[in-house]
């Protein structure tokens, strides 16, 4: 018997994702053949990392929590079928966020995730249990487990009651050793999720064309001259596409002897970094009425870039049609004009297509990390210099104050700055605080 996919649910960060029209999950393996002189072909051997992809297409049914997933957040999720089967993924990163909106259609969102952890039938879509986290009743967590055949067979547990966070220095008992948790099947987990927010109780707010505001805020001078906003009402926007995508690079290292007891299946990327800049593109289709196109030669003169058309801030707000509150906002700062074009077929409206590209860089790029003063909380950055209240007494003692390093990947890991050898002889000057 086969199952049709009418009742599957998709979960991201322990939340049901609504409005999904299509979901694709896959991974690719990399091997290459080994040829030996005198033997010929021997076998295929692993030649690269195994990484997965998840593609989601859905309708915008109100506020979208996936938009709030940060660039460096680890994402766990997956799909649960009505048969009780599931496909989960761990250590995913949100790679792309795309919105497509056209007159007469419900806005559509598509996302893609890159999976650096595990992806498969025995991998739980639910977040891993943490010994230091509090849990509410009916919260679902997963525990990693490997079956005798070597494949993942994670366990899912439901909190039977409220589990408070442990006091400092103490850890909560693992679900399998605690009476506060109950082992549940994937199908039961799916029903618990569905019960926690029943479909009829879910509040869907579908933006309409009238509730979508697009504004072209002009150049760095914030002047709307020569933008589409200058001709408000004259050039109705028929549709737009928004896309924001990351370029990620993963780093793999040799294992240590200390890892010899861990299964090779636990081997993952040591580090994943974003290759900046992050590119965002907007393209609009406009029913052209009163708009003067730029001329392409104007692009050659940087002086024209700040005159509105070529470089401008763009904001798209999708509002609740009932109360005009902003549901979603998509914006690009200093978006650069990529192209303009008109199409003017006979007996049809002339349309204008305009596309922009914006780039985001790391806020304090190229600094590696930040240091937080343990008393004042002030953040300082590595490539500047420490401002110290005293001068080196010259007695060999550490006299520079007490700062800690905050890792971007894992804020719970702290290292005393005084333990970082490279700072002991740092020059002392004023630095940004």
């Amino acid at each position: 018997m086969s199952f049709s996919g009418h009742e599957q649910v998709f979960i991201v960060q322990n939340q049901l994702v609504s409005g999904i029209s299509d979901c694709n999950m896959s991974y690719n393996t990399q091997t290459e053949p080994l040829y030996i002189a005198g033997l010929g072909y021997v076998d295929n051997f692993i030649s690269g990392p195994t990484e997965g992809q998840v593609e989601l297409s859905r309708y915008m049914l109100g506020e979208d929590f996936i938009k709030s997933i940060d660039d460096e957040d680890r994402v766990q999720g997956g799909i649960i079928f009505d048969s009780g089967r599931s496909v989960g993924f761990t250590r995913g990163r949100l790679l792309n966020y795309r919105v497509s909106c056209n007159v007469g259609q419900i806005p559509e969102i598509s996302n893609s995730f890159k999976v650096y952890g595990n992806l498969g039938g025995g991998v739980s879509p639910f977040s891993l249990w943490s010994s230091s986290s509090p849990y509410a009743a009916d919260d679902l967590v997963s525990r990693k487990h490997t079956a005798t055949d070597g494949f993942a067979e994670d366990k899912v547990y439901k909190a039977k009651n409220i589990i408070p966070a442990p006091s400092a220095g103490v850890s909560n008992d693992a679900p399998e050793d605690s009476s506060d948790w109950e082992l549940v099947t994937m199908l039961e987990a799916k029903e618990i999720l569905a019960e926690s927010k029943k479909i009829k109780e879910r509040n869907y707010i579908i933006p309409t064309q009238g509730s979508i505001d697009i504004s072209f805020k002009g150049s760095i001078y914030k002047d709307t001259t020569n933008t589409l906003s200058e001709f408000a009402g004259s050039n109705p926007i028929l549709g737009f596409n928004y896309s924001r995508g990351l370029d990620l690079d993963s780093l793999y290292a040799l294992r240590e002897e200390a890892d010899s007891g861990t299964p090779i299946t636990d081997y993952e990327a040591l580090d994943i970094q974003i290759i900046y800049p992050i590119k965002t593109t907007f393209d609009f289709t406009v029913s052209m009425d009163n708009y003067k196109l730029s001329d392409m030669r104007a692009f050659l003169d940087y002086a024209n870039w700040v005159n509105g058309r070529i470089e401008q801030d763009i904001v798209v707000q999708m509002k609740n049609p009932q109360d005009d509150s902003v549901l979603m906002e998509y914006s690009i700062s200093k978006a650069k004009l990529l192209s303009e074009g008109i199409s003017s077929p006979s007996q049809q409206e002339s349309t204008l297509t305009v596309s922009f590209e914006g780039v985001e860089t790391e806020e304090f790029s190229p600094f590696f990390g930040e240091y937080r003063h343990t008393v004042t909380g002030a953040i300082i950055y590595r490539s500047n210099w420490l401002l110290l209240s005293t001068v080196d007494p010259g007695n060999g003692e550490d006299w520079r104050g007490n700062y800690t390093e905050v890792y971007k990947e894992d804020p719970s890991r702290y290292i005393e700055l005084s333990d970082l050898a490279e700072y002991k002889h740092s020059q002392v000057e004023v630095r940004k605080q």
Partner: protein
Amino acid sequence: MSQFVSFRDCMVTIGAFQVYATSVSLDMQTSLTKDVRLEGFDGDLVAATVNRPTLTPTDGVKGTLSVDFVVSKQHFLYDEIENENNIASIFELNKQTSTALQQFGRVGNYRFFNAGLKSFSFSMRPFDLVRASAEYEIFGSIIQVSKELDVIDNLNPAEGLKSFGDVVVDGINLQDQSRFNIQLLSAQYSVRASRKYNFSIRANEHPVANYVPGAIMPYRVSLADLTIETQITSNKIIPAINETGKMQHGFGGEDFSEVEVTLQLFEAKDEAGDGQSNLLAKFGCVGQVTQQSLSAQGGSYLNGNFSVKQVIK
């Protein structure tokens, strides 16, 4: 039937053991040099005369065998009792390294004689087999023989993903996250031997040289130099070391004058099915940091590269 020997029929052996070569090259050359000398005097020209130029040998036939290969248990026998490599098969790389030449070997349907190991190296990195290279000096001529085929039932090469690399200083593992926190991206281990060859004039003048391959042979071989070098690519280099190899006191004071790098090669496949691949060999290098560098390029990381050198002989 083709007159060419295909790659799959081109077995490479050194001594009695097959090398699982992914590529091989063998080149031989004579030492013929131009011989021009004053021969007489021409009275008509009132000038000295020279002989008709000829090519004259100054040494025996020499060659180089370079082979890239994957390592497997057929090459390395790990002695678990002594906790050291018992590299009995092909490579003699420990302190008891023999200067004796391998008596014979073959590349496809050509046989060579008298090979001395010049260098051996391997590199390990994630998602690749442990790839090794060796270079031999070869003396004497090579002969054509019939090709030989071998059947091996189990080739389980060493793999970087399963293998381990550790760096220890003064008993402290530098990979300890609370200490130095070094992360190894790749490691390259190499051994280089330098031999001195002495030729006996009398023995090599014997007419047997015209009939026996390899007749012009070194009379005595001695090992002049044996050095191990391990090159590590990682997230770090060793900062603030002074000329003796110790870290300056203000920077933590670790004693880097003796760095111990251990590379453990494990088989790719877990044949026993016990969840752990077999250890093939353990290679150690205990020495000093002799060279280090930093490199970075767009879209990547700052990589440190340092070499630890151990002098054995």
